[in-house]
């Protein structure tokens, strides 16, 4: 290559380098690390365990307290319970949750809309460090975690067929109350 060309390229390169490097002469700076440890997140989960069991707790019954929804039918004045155990996973310093059931997960035949009433009651199985459930309004409980990661809760879902149902209202209805999708919910609330 021509010496002149070489010289021109070198000049351009040199000028570019000098301009790019302008002002890099920083003042003092230092750094140090803080051992902050690790932060873990808690848990909030609900899962059912075992099989749901029906029971007839009407004040007067025929044929004992067992109830089989596939072969037996309800009549006004009947009070039935569906018992199911659920496991709540609750860990977290400030964790607080409400436990209830979702009313929209139940399908009631319109003919019996106001005559079939439902309610929920729950109690934690006694165990070391189990969470505590305190009633907080209709069919709702406030869950305060204990030291244990999971808590087993006995949940009793009660169905009452109004005894003042008159005439032949709501007779012979299959799926008068559909509970195949009944869902229990656990929702975090701030303390």
């Amino acid at each position, binding site marked *: 290559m021509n010496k*002149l060309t070489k010289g021109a390229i070198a000049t351009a390169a040199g000028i570019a380098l000098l301009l790019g490097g302008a002002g890099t*002469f920083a003042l003092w700076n230092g750094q140090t690390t803080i051992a902050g440890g690790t932060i873990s997140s808690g848990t909030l989960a609900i899962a059912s365990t075992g099989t749901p069991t029906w029971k007839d707790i009407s004040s007067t019954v025929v044929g004992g307290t067992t109830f089989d929804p596939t072969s037996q039918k309800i009549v006004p004045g009947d009070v039935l319970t569906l018992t199911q155990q659920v496991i709540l996973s609750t860990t977290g310093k400030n964790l607080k949750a409400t436990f209830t059931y979702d009313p929209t997960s139940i399908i009631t035949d319109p003919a019996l809309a106001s005559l079939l009433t439902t309610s929920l009651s729950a109690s934690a199985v006694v165990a070391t460090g189990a969470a505590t459930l305190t009633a907080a309004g209709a069919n709702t409980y406030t869950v305060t975690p204990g030291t244990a990661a999971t808590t087993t809760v006995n949940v009793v879902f009660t169905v009452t067929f109004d005894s003042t149902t008159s005439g032949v209202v709501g007779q012979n209805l299959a799926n008068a109350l559909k509970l195949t999708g009944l869902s229990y*919910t656990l929702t975090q609330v701030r303390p």
Partner: protein
Amino acid sequence: MASYYPKSRKPRRGLRFANRVIFLFAIGGFTAIAFRALLGVKPVEAPQAPAPVSVPLPALPVEKRRKSKARSLVGALTFLTATVTLSLLATSGSYALWNGKTVINGSSLDTGNISLTVNTVTSYTLALPTTALAPGKSVLATATVKNAGSTPVSARVASTSIISNTNGLADSLTLTLTPVASAGACIAGLAGGTTAALPSFNTAAAPYAMPAGASQLVCFELKLDSTAPSSVQGGSATFRLNLIADQTRP
């Protein structure tokens, strides 16, 4: 001085000098890069080139300038508030905390029914013999009343309707309703049932409790009162017994 370079190859004096300057520049640039890499310092922004000189716009009177500045500030704030409010409104309620749910398959509940049948039908014509009655004489019939529903009931004759009545016969008739064990046991003059004049006959005072599925044979005795006046002769009466079943708890 003799030169060792052939005249054609030796660079001119000026060029030799230029070469040296370029060389120094290159060294300087590389040194700068080395310094930067070693110190790890972010380069300070190169000083901005001065803005090109231009003719300034005629200055607005001071007051007007302030106002437009305030207005634009207010406008900016309003826009910001509106944006934030709208975004908050749009997403209101979606700031959910943790939540979980579990589905229980509780199956479905079916309702039962209440049903009372007489001889398996809900409207039954009693097979009373059409023998002409004389005072003190009775005709008899039986029927089976059944609780065909899914709940225990309390059954009763709620009322009697006289459909037709000639010569006032119905007022001289007496009906007796008695549960019996068999058809052969249905005879005139039974005790243990309900006896009353036909037009006002009912068993409200003694309803009959029947569990679900239970059946009961009932004896009907229709008797012409021995005190019937002779004006009832040749008369006829048609009547209907209205039964009601009320659900009872077991």
